[in-house]
């Protein structure tokens, strides 16, 4: 039989060639036609899969239409409606299981932040700023949960959750560790020991509480948060006395300073918080006194995979937009996507994203997140995302840098993930530190 080249190519495709196998052989070949996203989703347990689908729908419905304007004019949009919508859909209460929170029960105990990470990726594909706006709330909430204090969980976390989950109130929390003179220092052991911290808490026996003074900077959601978990050293002591305090909006002496002008993730504010003799009642101490440093480092262990997932979302968003561009743009007689060099580049981007996703999912598939796993996932995912965003921009040529195409926004957004939650250099050191007594043990003389 004489077949044309096209027919022969068609016959050789795995799906068609499989028909020549026997029934058992055919069963062992996965010929399901589904997207990259669907393939990955199918590997998840039912509970997590449900959140992934829900988050995709939410991000397309709520985040996508708001994203371009929120990025261009961050001060001219009201974040409350989207916070309320996210709360109603249960996205703001994923750190606890029903009836107190909304996370799927079995997956939660297999990986506490896995569901948050999956949601984070979906949100970030549409807009880094709005994703941060919604997810920074979990970061602010995490110290209450990870303090291990039932007092804090029952008195502060659960009432907040119930208001959010049941009433759909757009309330949110923020997490404040960074100080103007101490950025990386508060995210790494050696730096912490030498850090010059200005935020201090002084005990007042008269008032039966603490007087907080100092300043924090670059606080995500700082300007809109109803409550902030703030870390401060106790008076006349060093960072080893770091204690977490719950500061509430409206407390006398607590104010928001300048809001930073950022390159990307602009829909979420990064604000300066000022504490001028703020009285903190004893009940607002989170966990035990002087347990703040451990609490802070552990919060970072839980949050870094989520930051990695957000970075991955930026990369995926750029990839998807670039793919769409290649589908609809002609170069000479053919669509861009029909050129082999373009196909190679697109495939490379998809492979990079898949590797990053595998790493993130692996890093948070346990009940307790650990330092080296979280740091590695964050570093790899954020570097990969920035690389993929660059590839997408380059592939689109001059169209890549136009705001209207959306890729440049995700490129700007992705760059921040290499900096916050510890710069990627600090995260590399975190991996080293975690295994200092095992893999990286110093030689004994």
């Amino acid at each position, binding site marked *: 039989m004489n077949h044309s080249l096209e027919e022969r190519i068609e016959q050789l495709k795995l799906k068609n060639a499989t028909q020549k196998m026997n029934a058992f052989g055919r069963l062992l070949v996965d010929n399901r036609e589904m997207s990259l996203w669907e393939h990955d989703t199918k590997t998840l347990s039912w509970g997590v899969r449900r959140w992934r689908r829900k988050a995709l729908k939410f991000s397309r419905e709520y985040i996508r239409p708001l994203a371009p304007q929120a990025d*261009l004019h961050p001060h001219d949009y009201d974040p409350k409606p989207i916070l309320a919508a996210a709360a109603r859909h249960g996205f703001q209460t994923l750190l606890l299981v029903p009836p107190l929170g909304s996370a799927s029960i079995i997956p939660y105990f297999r990986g506490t932040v896995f569901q948050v990470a999956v949601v984070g990726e979906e949100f970030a594909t549409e807009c880094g700023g709005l994703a941060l706006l919604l997810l920074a709330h979990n970061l602010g909430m995490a110290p209450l949960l990870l303090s291990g204090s039932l007092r804090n969980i029952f008195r502060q976390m659960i009432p907040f959750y119930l208001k959010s989950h049941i009433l759909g109130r757009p309330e949110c929390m923020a997490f404040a560790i*960074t100080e103007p*003179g*101490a*950025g*990386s*220092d508060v995210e*790494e052991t*050696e*730096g912490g020991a*030498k*850090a*010059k911290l200005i935020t201090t808490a002084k005990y007042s026996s008269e008032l039966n509480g603490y007087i907080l003074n100092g300043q924090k*900077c*670059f606080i995500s959601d700082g300007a809109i948060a109803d409550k902030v978990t703030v870390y401060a050293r106790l008076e006349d002591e060093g960072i080893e006395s770091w204690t977490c305090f719950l500061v509430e909006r409206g407390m006398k002496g607590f104010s928001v300073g300048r809001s*930073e*002008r*950022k*390159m*990307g993730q602009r829909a979420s504010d*990064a604000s300066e918080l000022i504490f001028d003799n703020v009285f903190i009642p004893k009940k607002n101490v989170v966990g035990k006194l002087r347990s703040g440093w451990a609490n802070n480092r552990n919060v970072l262990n839980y949050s870094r995979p989520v930051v990695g997932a957000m970075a991955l979302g930026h990369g995926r968003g750029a990839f998807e937009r670039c793919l769409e561009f290649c589908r609809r*743009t*002609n*170069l*000479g*007689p*053919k669509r*861009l996507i029909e*050129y082999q*060099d*373009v196909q190679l*580049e697109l495939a490379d981007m998809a492979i990079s994203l898949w590797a990053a996703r595998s790493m993130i999912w692996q890093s948070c598939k346990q009940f307790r997140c650990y330092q080296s796993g979280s740091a590695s996932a964050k570093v790899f995912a954020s570097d990969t995302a*920035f690389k993929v965003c*660059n590839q997408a*921009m*380059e*592939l*689109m*040529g*001059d*169209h*890549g*840098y*136009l*705001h*209207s195409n959306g890729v*440049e926004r995700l*490129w*700007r957004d992705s*760059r*921040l993930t*290499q*900096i*916050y939650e510890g*710069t*990627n*250099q600090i995260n590399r*050191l975190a991996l080293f530190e975690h295994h200092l007594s095992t893999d990286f043990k110093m030689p004994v003389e």
Partner: protein
Amino acid sequence: MDREPVAGICAEDVTHYQDLARQYAKKSVLPIFQDEYSDGNLSLLPDKLKTAFEIGIAAAPDESLAGCQYGIWGGALEETGIMPSVLLLSVIAETCGGIAMCLHAQGVASNLLLGVKRKLPFIPVRAALCLQEGFCPPFIGTVISPDKDAPAKITTTAVLKNNKYIINGSKSFVYSMNDVDAYVVLGRVNDQWGCFLIGANEKGVERTDVGVRTGLRACLVEHVRFNNAEIPPEARLDDGDARELVIRALNLNWTGMAAIATGIAKGAAGAARKYAAERYQGGTQIEEHPAVKMLIAGAEAGIASAQATVFSLQDSSLDSLQKLRKSAAAKLTVMELCSRAVTDCLQTFGGYGYMEDFGMEKRLRDVTVLKSASGSPTYLKQIIFDIEKEGAL
């Protein structure tokens, strides 16, 4: 102050050009950034560009203006080589890549006009080059063999009718200073390249701003559409085939962009060094931290390589294909080296690098735009390969 060892140009001239650019950057460009504008206060830009014409940095086709010969890509290019322009662009870009791009775009268009021996219908002061269409710059050969299964064809055409050329088509991503007087348009006349001078306000010329962009915001970027625009035959710049002008335009464009990227990266490295000496973390200046040292040293090594690559373009004819291959390769590698250098320098600032205060995020945005603009890496690789292929040209 460093003195660059540059082949083909004496040390005094190097100093002269660098000093001139430094003075301009300090007195005219820097004041734009004194208020809280990430890309500078662009309302001050017209005045600053006017100064560039006055002191002779900006080239212009008008021989009565100071920069006509020795401005960036001015008429003396054949005599001096590319180096003076490269030095000027690079030093100005250390302060602002966008303004350097304005001067570069003006220079490229002016250079093509200055090469014309015959009398033109009018002499513009500000001009811009219209070369690119749609997705990327042209693949040189496609206008010669329009029926070939080539990836791109020039669709802007000029037809001679009643002793007038009628221009139709559209050009994309035209870089210019604001308020250009004319466009230098490269299009197709039958199966050959033609180059035309068209007044910006001529009937049939429509200009559209491309909208919000990542960087180089001081420089205007437009799409220009020609809808039966009529021009006299004297406004044709070539003598029957403008292929050499296309090659020259691409050569100048890529060389200049590589020089600007090098300047941006040098500015970033300088700022990172300064910040690293001032900022304390972990009880010491951050320049004492190996992580920071590695970032800055790596960036500086990359910049040195990039600069050497740009300087190596000095000795060859701007109209040759071999030079085009070299400048395409230079743009490809220099952009990669410089964007890596800028992002590493930004990283040394931590969170402050991402904020607008230190100007690092602007440098990253600018250099990233340069990487994709007027020939993305994929396109450049294609053209580097194709130049060697018989028949493609």
